[in-house]
């Protein structure tokens, strides 16, 4: 797991951890060195320094990335499992602090289906750290436990700890990730259960009670280990029983940090509190602190921290009461820890993910969510800038009561009683001055994670970056896994000062999901490996496995690609399969072709409209190749459709196009021609199809079926018959995708494997040869049959494919795409058209996708004439063949063109795209 924030990782027995920052090592941090030597790396350093030469960038990048301290992504496959859970609920409460707990209590009591999530292992939020408040006469944690007990007793309420709501999307879709096992010792983890769970929560009402995070103050050398926020020191003490130092300096500009100082002093730590305010905190707080033996320095700020690898002291200065200026030197203190508090920053992220804007609150010195929230989103507690518990709970009570009223739920009881206390206003100071111009004193970090110093923001503004979004990108302020939770307000304030604008006017950068990094594993959930994309198998799969087929995936289907005999590679196998099929008989699993049953009195009329060719005269028992155009006149699908009865057709589509064509039919029927009485049923999975192909195919069919007359004049090419094949009711179509005499046997899919094996048995005396998609491709290319999507790309009209014979321009209804065929451009010159290509060297197989040039001049930009769409070695012809689209190709038969690929130009002759049996003798045999 790269790039975790150490203080947010729950410890467990056996945890192995290492630092990602610091290169070559933390003790000799290359960047630390640069920092100490001052302005070696100004913002934009990488852009400015490593631009040229471009080719060397990968080398620079390698070391810059190492020095920047990005973690290493694991290269192994993730052995863990993850899952997804969907919720459809009335109320989601984000945040399990006092406000969130009370909101969930009220929603739960009102009978609403309620979910409460909190990112921490324990509920309680700030009450876990702050131990003095009393709510309804109870200690904070007693009240929290009372709430949790009540919530647990309500069947309509779910409480999820270790669950971070990280994104809020439109219509109150919230995504949250729950860490299920990350905190357990390795020996206690259950590999059968997921490691993390992604919750997709759709809530009628979202109540954001995500609280606020303390931000540090910005002062010289504030990156020395031993400098932390006051809240961190407070939490270490009260939650974990750890005193962060023996001699601690607390620097603040607000009242709340006095609480940390007081608790530390009461625990026996030697505490000095420096307050940037001349008057300090409310009198009762100052008194309490003094009573506990702490020293109080009013009107003081830290100029710089002393010490290199750890804090050894701090140099203070006296501050002016009004402007943020130094008015004199202060004491030099010997301390081992520095805590600072620059006030609280509301956690407004989720509110802003889908367009909400935070507002600047000059009293509380934070961007906060507006009290009124937004439609179906309520904001309660510290997220609205209410730092005091009494304010937070009374506002929560009022907001949730209003929300419940909107849901038609009445009485909610009384708000929890908390004594309100006198508070002195915080001072609007973010960067503590040291008496020197910015950039000349000790380096003062704004963004610890991205090493952005106050001087860097000034530099960015001096270089004329005016928008805070640009300042952010130029300096990397607020980047990374922290996303500016600690640094943003300080950065905005420093930029505002440099720009000479109020903070409210500078505004914030854009808050985007995710609030915190989420593993790809959780996002992917169970949709990995076999379940990433469904695989479809035909009913004959076991037969193919037994014959050692190699497979390829075609539109989710696992289709046999070729059937190698021992020692054969693809080419050897395909050559053998092709020759066996052309010379005797081959067999292919054609079950994956899309099949749609089209039925109704207007079925024929519907086909007339949806296909380019005519269907009025197709009799029952006959099949026809159909070309489907989009309204732009371009070929979108093709396939053979059989007429079963006057009002009943069996349509086939390409394997990959089946779903698309099915929707296409439905949409035209429902939106444009609802008056046509026709209905469609997708029957792809209902039929198993065995294609028996080659001059001996008739003999194989005759062995298997006695109730169909296979005489060449009784059962002609493009005829369809129903009968009994190998004892099974079957539809047999005499159609061919190879140019050979061929039959496709369709039976109930449940009998697919049986039918395949019966065909193999019957064909044994003719050395019947199973073949896969590769041989199918070669056979159809030899005959010049297109594959939609390979030889076409959505810009090929029937005319471009030399298939005008499949366009019934005289049909009464203006079929889809017809009008477009008449447009000047579509009917005009210079279009790319399908041709055949024969490389002059018959051993050379052209590269598919290779560009075609008119001559050997490949000077850039070369005049590109088209490209190769299909290219194979034809064992039957003993040479290479190719299909291509070529500008004005229909008029260029006999020309020599040059096919350019892999740095070489290969000459080829333009020919008809039908290479085998132009007269059609074989398929009519």
């Amino acid at each position, binding site marked *: 797991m790269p790039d975790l924030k150490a203080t947010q990782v729950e410890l467990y027995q056996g945890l192995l951890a290492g630092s990602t920052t610091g290169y070559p090592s933390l003790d000799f941090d290359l960047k630390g060195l640069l920092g100490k030597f001052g302005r070696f790396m100004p913002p934009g350093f990488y852009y400015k320094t490593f631009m040229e030469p471009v080719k060397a960038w990968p080398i620079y990048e390698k070391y810059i990335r190492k020095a920047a301290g990005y973690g290493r992504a694991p290269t192994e496959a993730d052995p863990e499992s993850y899952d997804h859970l969907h919720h459809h609920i009335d109320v989601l409460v984000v945040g399990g602090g006092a406000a969130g707990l009370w909101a969930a209590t009220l929603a739960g009591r009102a009978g609403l289906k309620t979910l409460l999530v909190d990112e921490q292992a324990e509920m309680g939020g700030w009450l876990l750290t702050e131990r003095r408040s009393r709510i309804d006469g109870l200690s904070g944690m007693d009240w929290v436990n009372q709430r949790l007990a009540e919530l647990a007793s309500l069947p309509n309420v779910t409480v999820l700890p270790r669950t971070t709501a990280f994104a809020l999307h439109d219509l109150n879709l919230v995504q949250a990730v729950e860490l299920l096992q990350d905190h357990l010792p390795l020996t206690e983890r259950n590999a059968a259960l997921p490691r993390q769970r992604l919750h997709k929560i759709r809530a009628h009402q979202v109540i954001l009670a995500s609280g606020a995070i303390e931000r540090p103050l910005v002062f010289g050398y504030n990156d020395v280990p031993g400098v932390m926020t006051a809240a961190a020191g407070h939490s270490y003490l009260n939650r974990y029983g750890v005193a962060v130092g023996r001699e601690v300096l607390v620097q603040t500009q607000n009242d709340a940090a006095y609480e940390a100082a007081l608790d530390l002093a009461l625990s026996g730590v030697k505490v000095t509190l420096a307050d940037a305010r001349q008057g300090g905190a409310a009198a009762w707080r100052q008194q309490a602190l003094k009573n506990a033996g702490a020293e109080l320095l009013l009107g003081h700020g830290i100029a710089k921290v002393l010490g290199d690898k750890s804090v050894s002291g701090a140099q203070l200065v006296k501050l002016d009461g009004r402007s943020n200026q130094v008015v004199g030197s202060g004491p030099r203190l010997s301390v081992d820890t520095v805590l600072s508090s620059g006030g609280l920053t509301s956690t407004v992220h989720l509110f802003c993910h889908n367009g909400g804007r935070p507002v600047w609150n000059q009293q509380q010195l934070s961007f906060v969510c507006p009290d009124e929230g937004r439609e179906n989103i309520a904001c309660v507690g510290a997220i609205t800038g209410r730092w005091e518990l009494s304010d937070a709970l009374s506002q929560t009570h009022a907001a949730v009561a209003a929300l419940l009223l909107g849901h038609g739920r009445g009485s909610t009881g009384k708000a929890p009683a908390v004594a309100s206390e006198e508070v002195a206003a915080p001072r609007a100071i973010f960067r503590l001055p040291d008496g020197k111009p910015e950039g000349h004193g000790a380096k003062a970090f704004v963004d610890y994670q991205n090493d952005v110093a106050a001087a860097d923001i000034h530099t960015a503004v001096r270089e004329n970056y005016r928008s805070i979004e640009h300042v952010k990108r130029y300096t990397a302020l607020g980047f990374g896994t922290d996303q500016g939770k600690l640094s943003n307000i300080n950065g905005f304030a420093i930029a505002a000062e440099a720009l000479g604008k109020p903070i409210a006017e500078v505004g914030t950068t854009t808050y985007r999901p995710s609030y915190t990094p989420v593993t790809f594993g959780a996002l992917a959930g169970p949709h990995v490996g076999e379940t990433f994309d469904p695989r479809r198998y035909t009913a004959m799969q076991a037969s193919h496995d037994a014959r050692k087929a190699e497979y390829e995936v075609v539109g989710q289907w696992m289709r046999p690609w070729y059937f190698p005999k021992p020692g054969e590679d693809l080419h050897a196998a395909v050559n053998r399969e092709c020759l066996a099929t052309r010379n005797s008989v081959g067999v292919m699993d054609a079950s994956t072709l899309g099949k749609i049953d089209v039925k109704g009195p207007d079925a024929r009329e519907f086909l007339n409209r949806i296909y380019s060719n005519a269907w009025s005269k197709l009799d029952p028992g006959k099949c026809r190749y159909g070309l489907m155009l989009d309204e732009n006149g371009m070929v979108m699908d093709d396939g053979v459709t059989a007429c079963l009865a006057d009002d009943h057709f069996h349509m086939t589509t390409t394997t990959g196009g089946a779903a698309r064509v099915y929707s296409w039919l439905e949409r035209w029927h429902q939106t444009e021609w609802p008056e046509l009485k026709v209905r469609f049923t997708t029957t792809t999975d209902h039929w198993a199809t065995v294609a028996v192909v080659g001059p001996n195919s008739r003999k194989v069919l005759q062995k298997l079926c006695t109730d169909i007359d296979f005489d060449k004049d009784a059962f002609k090419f493009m005829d369809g018959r129903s009968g009994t094949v190998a004892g099974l009711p079957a539809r047999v179509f005499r159609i061919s995708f190879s140019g050979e005499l061929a039959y496709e046997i369709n039976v109930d899919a449940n009998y697919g494997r049986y039918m395949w094996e019966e065909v193999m048995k019957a064909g044994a005396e003719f050395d019947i040869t199973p073949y896969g998609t590769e041989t199918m491709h070669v056979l159809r290319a030899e005959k010049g049959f297109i594959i939609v999507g390979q030889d076409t790309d959505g810009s090929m009209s029937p005319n471009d494919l030399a298939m005008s014979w499949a366009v019934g321009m005289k049909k009464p209804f*203006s079929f889809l795409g017809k009008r477009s065929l008449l447009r000047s451009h579509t009917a005009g010159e210079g279009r790319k058209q399908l041709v055949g290509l024969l490389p002059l060297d018959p051993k050379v197989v052209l590269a598919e996708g290779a560009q075609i040039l008119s001559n050997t001049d490949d000077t850039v930009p070369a005049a590109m004439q088209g490209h190769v769409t299909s290219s194979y070695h034809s064992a039957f012809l003993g040479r290479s063949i190719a299909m291509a689209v070529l500008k004005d190709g229909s008029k260029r038969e006999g020309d020599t063109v040059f096919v350019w690929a892999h740095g070489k130009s290969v000459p080829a002759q333009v020919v008809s795209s039908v290479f085998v049996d132009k007269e059609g003798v074989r398929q009519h045999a």
Partner: protein
Amino acid sequence: MLVITCPYCQEAREEEEFSYAGEAYIARPAVPEEVDDATWGDYVFHRKNPRGWHWEQWQHVAGCRKVFAVKRHTVSYEIAGSWTLADGKALYLEEQA
């Protein structure tokens, strides 16, 4: 992700069950051969793409497979309602008038 109510199934469902099927109420010229290339080109290619309310078609592909009309706001993604194509058309024409 939208929540869409299928007017046939009469239930609000996640967008994943549906497929977008383009702008609604684009009239196919009754006799395509009688319109000029520009008019035909408008019909084939040009779409309103408004900033604001938009009448569009959705198909309940993982449900009843019916195509129906939805009036959706392209900025706020608010959905004013969903109707069968015929019911929606009456409203749509009223709005256009």
